[in-house]
């Protein structure tokens, strides 16, 4: 316990870094996946190759990616940008499938009437297609967020790993407390992130919880 008290500053610092490194890629990944998914749905032949390519990207080992990115982009080896780019790649590779499935979940008659009432294509995406796709997209966001939170720790190998650095610290000193703290905080963080996502999904989609029960009025 005394280690925890003595190192609250460090723990807080690593937790903040961990949140930053795992959440920013989710946001960036979402911003990339939505237009990409839209294009894929619009030009149908693109969808399957894109989903397959996403699968391939996701299978790349993360350590390799952390190391290769600086070589390719010329970033500093110890830059957080490397982690963010790598995790954004993973996010997009997973999320693209959900965005495509989500946009495809818009019923044909709904799409048809959206066109016919006079939505422009972009307006329709924002006001009709995306809101209806929210449940499917959020299912992907939940998976990706938790995966990112666990993957950030691997960055510790190259010296930027948020809570993961508590693991390396513990191993180097052959001392368990930092490891336990790191594991517990990672779990809590994942849990908290999931709660936030589930709550925001519920707020965004009050209509989705309604089961088809016609009301008996006139």
């Amino acid at each position: 316990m005394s280690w925890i008290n003595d190192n609250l500053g460090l723990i807080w610092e690593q937790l903040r870094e961990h949140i930053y490194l795992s959440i920013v890629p989710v946001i960036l990944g979402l911003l990339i996946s939505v237009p990409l998914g839209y294009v894929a749905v619009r030009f149908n032949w693109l969808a399957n190759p894109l989903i397959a390519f996403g699968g391939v990207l996701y299978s790349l080992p993360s350590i390799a990616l952390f190391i290769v990115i600086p070589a390719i982009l010329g970033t500093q080896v110890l830059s957080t940008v490397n982690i963010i780019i790598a995790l954004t790649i993973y996010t997009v590779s997973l999320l693209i499938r959900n965005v495509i499935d989500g946009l495809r979940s818009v019923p044909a008659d709904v799409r048809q009437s959206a066109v016919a009432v006079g939505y422009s294509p972009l307006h329709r995406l924002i006001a009709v297609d995306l809101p209806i796709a929210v449940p499917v997209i959020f299912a992907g966001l939940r998976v990706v967020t938790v995966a990112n939170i666990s993957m950030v720790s691997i960055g510790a190998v190259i010296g930027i790993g948020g809570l993961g650095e508590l693991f390396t610290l513990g191993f180097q000193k052959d001392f368990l407390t930092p490891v336990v703290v790191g594991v517990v905080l990672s779990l809590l963080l994942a849990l908290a992130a999931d709660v936030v996502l589930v709550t925001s999904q519920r707020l965004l989609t009050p209509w989705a919880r309604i089961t088809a029960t016609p009301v008996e009025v006139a």
Partner: protein
Amino acid sequence: MIEFEDVTKRYPDGTVAVDNLSLRIPSGQITVFVGPSGCGKTTSLRMINRTIERTGGRISIDGEDINSKDAVTLRRGIGYVIQHAGLFPHKTVVDNVATVPKLLGWDKRKTRATAMELLERVGLDLKLAERYPAQLSGGQQQRVGVARALAADPAVMLMDEPFSAVDPIVRNQLQEELLRLQRDIGKTIVFVTHDIDEAIKLGDNVAVLRTGGKLAQFAPPAELLANPADDFVRGFVGQDRGYRALTFVHPDDLPLKPLPSDLILDDGGAPVGWRIDTADEIQPLGSVFTRGDSLRAALDAVLTSPSGLGVCVDADSRAVGVVDQAIVAEALRP
């Protein structure tokens, strides 16, 4: 008036969905496109709001070519109702109805007031306004669909088989309501159906299309029944077109016989049933008709009455006389 001039839709693979269609759709009336599947009726309808683009010919609304403005603007000025209503599942009923006024940038209060007024107009309980479409029955959803189409008060409303997915009783209700509504609003309505009965019931004019997108006949329903242009139309209009034609005969001078003593009336003079041959129990009345009703209604009253006499009532439901088969048959004689 909506005018089709030599309109053709040919798909890249060479299929011709609509072939040289020329047609004038009068304003303020219901025009029905009817025909078997593959006759291009839906394609023809959807070319009007350019959700399908034609490949040849010209379509104009009140003289203005539909290509003279961009498709999005055009569509906001044309109401559209489809088979399963196509309501937005993530919007409440009132927000669904408010869609087009919102797109047009109307003031919020005016939009909502208009939406509520329309819900009332299509016969929906205002308690449903804040519900989501999934909470409504098929018939209710279709009413919301009609309200949404009318929200921005378009001059033209397109209806693509709007009532074919609901059960026959609700369908009949919705048809009656559409006719009642149309008497108030007088829109130019283009209505697509594969059901000739629906076409005859709703249409001021009926365009019968044959497979391959060719116009077989364009005429008011009575004319269609009386003088089908060819064997295709005759076959499509059906075997009992003679009986259906009775719908369009409205004799004002059908001679009535005096009320027989075995017709039971209530205190107000409304018929309640028959007591035939001094039997104790009262037999049900059967259907009744009013002066000016179609011969179909009069004949139906004769056929459903246990006495063989159809009861004619006045506007206050009081019995005024009866007719028998002979009277109806006489009225049918040309």
